[in-house]
């Protein structure tokens, strides 16, 4: 690896926290017809049902080419845009 040079792989560029957060907010706006804040609890506020949560799992897996399995499949990882963004970045790094 060379150092001192700005090397930005295309895939990493496409999957920054900002990009994921923005894309998710847009997806939610389309699906639940509501503009949500990054830290808004989708489930406590009744915006999303557990059924919609399942669609979110499938959407994240397909969009970001990740597998969300086992212990990562918990509701807390899907409560907010922030939490989902963190999950996507963590699994893509992993």
């Amino acid at each position: 690896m060379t150092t001192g040079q700005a090397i930005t792989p295309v895939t990493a560029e496409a999957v920054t926290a900002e990009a994921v957060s923005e894309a998710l907010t847009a997806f939610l706006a389309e699906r639940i017809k509501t503009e949500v804040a990054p830290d808004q609890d989708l489930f406590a506020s009744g915006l999303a049902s557990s059924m919609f949560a399942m669609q979110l799992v499938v959407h994240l897996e397909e969009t970001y080419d990740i597998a969300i399995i086992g212990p990562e499949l918990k509701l807390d990882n899907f409560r907010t845009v922030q939490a989902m963004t963190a999950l996507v970045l963590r699994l893509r790094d992993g």
Partner: protein
Amino acid sequence: MPDAPTLVKCLIWDLDNTLWQGTLLEDPGVRLPDEIRDVIITLDARGILQSIASKNDHDLAWQRLEDLGIAEYFVHPRIGWGRKSDSVCGIADELNFAMNTIAFIDDLPSERAEVSFRAAEVRCYPAEQAASLPGRPEFRPDVVTVDARRRRQMYQASFRRDAERESFAGPDEDFLRSLELVMAIKRADEEDLSRVEELTLRTSQMNATGVHYSDAALRGLLADPGHEVLTVTLSDRFGPHGAVGVMLLEYRPGVWHLKLLATSCRVVSFGAGTVILNWLIDQAARAGVHLAADFRRTDRNRMMDIAYRFAGFAEDPCACLTSTSPASTASTASAGERDGVQCLHLAAAPRPGPTTMRLTAPDLTAGRVPVR
């Protein structure tokens, strides 16, 4: 000894000189023989769906079917000028049925050959065999349950429901509430188990455990005080969904063990799995017990995997799991795997009832003293 033939799940009719006598475009008064009407009604009552693949003017042909009083018997009819094989495959696709469960009847050998060429598994019959179809083994299911008798109405209600969902603008949860869903969980009796047996026979089901319990095994547990066999039915303002789920629960000291949870694919989009799990968790909390749940991942139960995990089930080790009896399958000393079957665990806490449907269910805690 030869196996029983695969049952036909949908019979697709040609119209001219097959279903009715004559060619509609030449003779607007084509006649429906009584024996053909009997066949249609008989197969419908057995839960065999029927459709149409006909080269005809659509509006004219449909009007004639309505005038004859039989239009309501057909689902996803394909009346037009395309290839019959396209129609047959399209109908099978829309129903999500395998080709070897489809039958096609047509008076023209050329049409039967065209369908056979492109869909070899479809069973084709010449028109003159129409009256004999109900007597053939592939059209005779062993058990005809109340759900089978109204299967066509359930499919038709489901089309109307889907159409309404497509046109619904608000959040999913609002749409679900608009359906006026009613779920009934009840302790199973013999009749309920027949309906569930059909559910487990059919391919479109979500078996969370991936472990098959035979009808005989479930019947044997009906009277066992250590086990609970529960069935789930669902209905909404479009009509009944029928028996859509089955649970097998074993009571143990300090822990209830969910050994089987299977729900029909048809009700996944209503969040039925989650409603059932939340009810069970709430019951366990009232009884002061933990929950253990068997789960084996298969290529078709992902949604149930997610439902379990989102309900809070995890791979925690817990002392309650050591009390499981050695005779029971899939029970291990700690949460873990055996034969690919995971034993998931949850320390139950009270849950609110569903917000999207009305639920009626027995009180499992009645007569059960909390263990801890």
